[in-house]
């Protein structure tokens, strides 16, 4: 089966992921994307999401908290703000963060609280949600 090299780098942890893979499914600001080998050249910005990486029939998940993705026919490079494998994620902390972010978004929406930056709150919620997804916790 054809493969494509996927490299994920972050500013603080170096190269988090570097492997030949079969398919990558991720979410950019323009929507969900599936990248197969020999994809056309592409540059896009990613939103916080749980990326699905298909290798040898199996599938692994990787959390990215936004960043940029460049695709060339034989290589995908992701410059992520941060990236975490399921092992890196502390489930209790992720759950707590999710609850907190959810409350903030709700408060901001219902009361129109000026102290809460709704954009930031929603980004935090999206991150928390993606983290939980990577960990395999169902989120409504």
């Amino acid at each position, binding site marked *: 089966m054809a493969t494509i090299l996927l*490299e994920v*780098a*972050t*500013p*603080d*942890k*170096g*190269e988090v992921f570097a492997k030949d893979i079969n398919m990558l499914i991720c979410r*950019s*600001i*323009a929507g969900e994307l599936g990248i197969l080998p020999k994809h*056309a*050249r*592409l*540059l*896009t*910005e990613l939103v916080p999401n749980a990326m699905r990486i298909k290798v040898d029939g199996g599938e692994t998940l990787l959390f990215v908290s936004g960043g*940029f993705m*460049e695709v*060339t026919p034989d290589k995908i*490079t992701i*410059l992520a703000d941060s990236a975490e494998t399921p092992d890196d994620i502390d489930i209790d902390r992720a759950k707590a963060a999710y609850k907190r972010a959810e409350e903030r978004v709700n408060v901001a929406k219902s009361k129109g609280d000026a102290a809460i930056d709704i954009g930031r709150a929603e980004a935090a919620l999206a991150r928390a949600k993606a983290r939980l997804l990577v960990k395999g916790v169902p989120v409504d």
Partner: protein
Amino acid sequence: MANLQHIRRRIRSVKNIQKITNAMDMIARSRFNAAREALLSNIPYVTKTKEIMRRVVGQMRGQEFEHPFLKTRDELIAEQQNANGKFLFIVIASDKGLAGSFSSNVFKSAHDTIEYDGTDDGTSTGDDDEDENFHKKNFDALAAVKPVGQRSQKQQRQMSATGGMARAGAHKGGGGQGGGNIPVAREYHDADYIDGIELITVGRKATTHFKQRGYNIIKSYHGISERPQYKYAKEITDLVMERYASGEIIDVTLIYTRFKSAISCVPDDVTLLPLVTDDFVKAGDTLKEEYIYEPDTVTLLDKFMPRRLATRIYGAMLHSAASELSSRMNAMSNATDNAQELVGRLNLFYNKVRQAGITNEINEIVGGANALE
């Protein structure tokens, strides 16, 4: 004749200093390990950002896509863009001293770059990545874009006022001057020149150094030099971008210390803006392949380019932190060694003095006994 108590006191004080320098050495050592780790894990990200940026910029230029970020300096100059802007320098040094010549090396390099007058070409750091252009290299081009008429007149006045004080150099005049030789004086006491310069300093040492010399510091960051954080690099980037977009600055140069190895850290200066150097132009000629940009080219560029800038600044901060700590490590272990040597010499001296005293006493006793007989 030195007395014993005096020497004892000196030995004790040297030993105390040695304890302190030794402790500082160990602290620097452990922090250095963390800083080096941080630097090493940052490097892949920086290189990848650079690669992507080269490909993308090359491709976009190949497609003759127009965007302010994609123009080289020559093109910006031709369009007189930001022509009234100032030069911005970002100087990254340390918060604390006791790091040998770390800070002064940075300042030397900074003054070299900032006060460059187009004449001496001795000290340019040559062995660098090919895409990192230097303020110095661009001097002629910059002198051309600055409103040469006004400036040089002012500077000529300044020169006649300061007489031989000002270093005057003739360089090829560009722009509207019709190729005449324009003397340029660039000394830190040259008020006109300082007017055209802005500084962002990282590290308390850098701030005090440049403040004393009358530079215009628009922002300084303290307390982060040993453990840089990305958010500060982002803050600096936002500030720089804002000023660049509003035409207040024409050129951004970053001066920091590049960490090569634990024993070799060299000051380095790189041009941050304009982003595109001649090198990219060449790359653009070779890469004609089509890219897909999502959601669209302008949005993406507006987001990606500041990111590249912040990445570079953050990288430089990490380089600087590792360099600072390794310099401090070296300085402190040298100090400890010196103290050790000094204690040895003082001990020898102490024993000699003590022995001399004993010999003296014996002589006196023997002399006294002889006199009694």
